[in-house]
């Protein structure tokens, strides 16, 4: 409400829907652009245009809806028990028998992760180019499949190891810097290795018998360019 007690109104927008006419720039052909937003549109042509686009939107909306319904229907059937693939809808499913049931989906995801991991060791496998640092910032790096991480600790005392590896960096060669004592004087823990082996990244930490108790921390770097790729923390405690 304005100070004069009159409701202020915005000027009505010139357009409330998406632009339907693709001829937005200069037209080089003999056909002149037709705009339904003009003051006096050519009624017949505009009607045709609107009807055609409406039909197209209805078709694609229906196509997408059937795909979603098929997927939902299948999920309901699965939840009632059994994986009988009765839904053979061809609308929007990713295979001829509709969506995969969740368990099969997880199984396929596991198989793919396993296959991807093994591909690193097969001749002609994924080359170094296939890493997120090489291209594609943003969602691509976050979407990198996580590789399994195995930690081997060789120590005569209770030793806790925490490792964080930046997503995607487990697919490239890594080097672990010596782990420095945190807040006390002691020699560093060196010889920590991060090696890809048998489909997973294997971290090996060897603690000398006379290594002082306490926390040690070191940076993991990409071997190729030295960029930080994670961190390893080792906490040695007294044997009870």
């Amino acid at each position, binding site marked *: 409400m304005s100070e004069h007690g009159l409701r202020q109104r915005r000027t009505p927008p010139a357009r409330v829907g998406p632009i*339907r006419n693709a001829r937005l720039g200069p037209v080089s052909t003999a056909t002149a652009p037709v705009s339904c937003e003009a003051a006096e549109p050519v009624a017949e042509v505009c009607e045709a245009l609107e009807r055609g686009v409406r039909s197209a939107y209805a078709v694609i909306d229906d196509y997408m809806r059937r795909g979603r319904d098929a997927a939902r229907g299948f999920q309901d059937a699965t939840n009632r028990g059994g994986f009988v693939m009765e839904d053979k809808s061809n609308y929007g499913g990713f295979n001829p028998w509709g969506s995969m049931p969740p368990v099969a989906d997880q199984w396929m995801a596991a198989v793919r992760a396993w296959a991807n991991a093994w*591909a690193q060791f097969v001749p002609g496998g994924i080359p170094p180019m296939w890493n997120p640092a090489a291209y594609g910032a943003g969602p691509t790096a976050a979407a990198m499949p996580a590789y399994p991480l195995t930690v081997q600790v060789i120590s005569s005392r209770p030793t806790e190891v925490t490792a964080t590896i930046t997503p995607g960096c487990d697919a490239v060669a890594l080097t672990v810097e010596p782990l420095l004592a945190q807040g006390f004087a002691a020699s560093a823990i060196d010889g920590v290795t991060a090696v890809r082996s048998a489909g997973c990244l294997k971290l090996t930490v060897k603690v000398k018998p006379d290594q002082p108790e306490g926390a040690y921390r070191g940076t993991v770097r990409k071997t190729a360019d030295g960029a930080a790729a994670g961190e390893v923390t080792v906490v040695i405690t007294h044997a009870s």
Partner: protein
Amino acid sequence: MSAPSGSLVSSVLREYGEATRTVLFEYLPSGEPRRYLYDLLGDYPRRGGRAFRPSLCIATARAMGAPAELALRTAASIELIHNAMLIHDDIEDESEQRRGQPALHVAHGVPIAINAGDMLSLVSLRPLLDNRAWLGPDVSLRILEETERMARESAEGQAFELGWRRDNVNDVTESDYLLMVLKKTCWLATIHPSRMGALIGSRGAFDLDRCIRFGFFLGAAFQIQDDLLNLEGDAAAYGKELAGDIREGKRTLMLIGLIAKASPGERARLHAMLGQTREQRSDEDVAWVLDRMRFYGCLEYARQVANGLGGAAQHEFQELYGSLPDSRDKRFLEALPVWVIERN
């Protein structure tokens, strides 16, 4: 379309087309039997073509940050499948020309051409299998799954069209036509290349179903413009016989419009003509249908629908790719909706 956009589309198509063809020809076998099989596989690809499909795949991948190299094998596979389907389409449609020369079955006979088309389809799988070395097994397997889906959708769309012609179905609606186009044309021409580019560019992170709308509107505008060019295009540039769609009895948007608007007498003549075989349809029949289409404004109507679909494709482009950083490839994708309706 402004000149810079037009030249951008042309230069990208030329650049990515050459890169795709280089890879494509590496996959064509050269052993025996050459005369009856392998020499024929490269026939259609050697005749040229715009390389629209592979370029769309490569540009989408690059717009999302992937190097072109990662998309080349998939792009080559798409072009191989496209050419394989063209061989079979030409037989099914009884087309006489392809890219300005006799169709493969006209030059070599139907049995030989069918077999060559089958082999070309099989050859298209090899680059997808080789993808593993570049993309890893996960993305490579997904591309194979997507390719299977695309082939299925395309075959279903083709089945609609062939069935309508065989049974002389004359109550096909505009929605029926658009669904047929979605499956027959859009999946191979626009949806699949977009999805593959997005899959490669995002390393599998992108929701591929988001590509369907953009691909549908772009592909439908492409198909309607193609149907218009068939009726009134430049014969030399078009590369196929003009008005061939009328002779083949194809249910195009113009024919559907004519059936709806024609007088009862005209409709009866049209129905009788469409019930004939291709050979039985005379030049006079074809000329009469074209004349009636012009009389009832069916061509102009289709042109306006293509314009509208192009506009819808522009809208969907913004929804889909609007947030991507500016790049030559993004500008190429953005220019496609106008290009498809203004090409000749």
